[in-house]
């Protein structure tokens, strides 16, 4: 494996560029496809660090028209949030 391929792309899950490229070879064409095969983006930061890098690598392997279909997959909450704060209602408390 060449030097670049050992570069760590996802720090939380310790996934290298080589592993990302292998997932693409197996047919992954979306961020979610990469996630399923390598666990990249599944760490505590939920891909905030690595998603951009993965989109970058993917974009070299998909048709330009398909860039919008990468299923980048950001979901609520955009940042982690304590459940308590999410369900609290002004005046009504938690109920």
């Amino acid at each position, binding site marked *: 494996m060449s030097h670049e391929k050992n570069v760590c792309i996802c720090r939380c899950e310790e996934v290298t560029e080589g592993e990302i490229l292998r997932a693409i070879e197996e047919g992954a*064409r979306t961020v979610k496809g990469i996630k*399923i095969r390598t666990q990249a983006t599944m760490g*505590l930061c939920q891909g905030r660090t690595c998603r951009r890098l993965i989109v970058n690598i993917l974009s070299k392997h998909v048709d330009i028209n398909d860039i919008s279909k990468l299923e980048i997959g950001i*979901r609520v909450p955009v940042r982690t*949030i304590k*459940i*308590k704060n*999410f369900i609290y209602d002004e005046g009504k408390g938690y109920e």
Partner: protein
Amino acid sequence: MSRKTDIVVIGGGVIGASITYYLSKRGKKVILVEKKDFAFGSSGACDQMIFLQTKNPGIHLELAIESKKMYKNLEKELNHPIEFQTIGGMVLIETEDQMRVMKEFVKRQKETGLNVEILDIKDGTKIQEGLSPDLVGTTYSPDDAHVNSLELIKGYIKKAVTFGAEVLVNTEVIGIRTKNGKVKGVETTKGTIGCEVLVNAAGSWAPVIGEMIGLDLPIRPRRGQIILTEEVPPYIKHDIISANYITAKYSLDRSFDNDVLGKLGVGLAISQNHRGNIFIGATREFAGYNTETTREGIRRILKHAGKLIPGIVNFNIIRTFAGLRPYTPDGLPIIGYVDEVEGFFIAAGHEGDGICLSPVTGKIVSELIIDGKTFIDAKLLNLNRFRHLT
């Protein structure tokens, strides 16, 4: 591209993957065709439970018990870490009315052979700390289990490939070729595949495949929204469900729970995975093929979770997502050949039980296709059961 095989399996979810594995293990040449990628349907957006206690006593529970038996050996068989664990399960009971219904449900489950008991809340708290003291009681079964659905799909597929199966991702089935009322092949976005048998394992999309031969399948997508927390130390010691999960699922007794009557049925399910993330789910809603999560749905689930296990509100949530359970009117999957076109086999409609029932489904499908019979009365699962109604 134009090629031939024995059997084409449509859909790369847990059901299609299992069927591909069990058929190729028995020597059949199988090509699995998946529109997008593995686990892009419900199987990649779900919880992890193999929960025997949530199954209706009778054929439904029998299927789950058989599946659970098969799971015990599966990790070794697939030679892949699927994180299967028999962790035990509890159904939390909030009111006296629920207690009455659960007593009856448990009695019938015991008759089907399930090892399950009802505990008062004091005894319940001994096996799972942190339960709300306001609960009336809980059931407990040591037999409930869970599994990592993504790893399970990967495991089935990897092993199937060693038996000679082929897997095509990013390939959509767009038509069925028939001649004289028999299946002759499957048309895909990457060419035609000749075959005399196809298995429609497209989950919530199975009706779209059915339509290709003019078949009207009674399967509808039933959305489930679910939440994942940060990784925390072991906190949820057994898989947990609220009694209204069972009522939301089967609409058993509509009188005691408004959630069930509302559009947004919530049946709470809580479990912790190997990494320490806690799954908190889920809604049961008909919202077409929409897989968005809603603030209302997520808050509803979390509020209920906080009511039953108050300490849980101190954790951080890191992700929400939603999947489409393939719902059928009687809660059982549709498995078997159809009468209209020879060689057209359906294995879809597992609603909230596809992970749990995937091994037994693979077994039944492979036996029906190869041996023409299986260990249960196949009529009970055939599409024709809905036709007798009309």
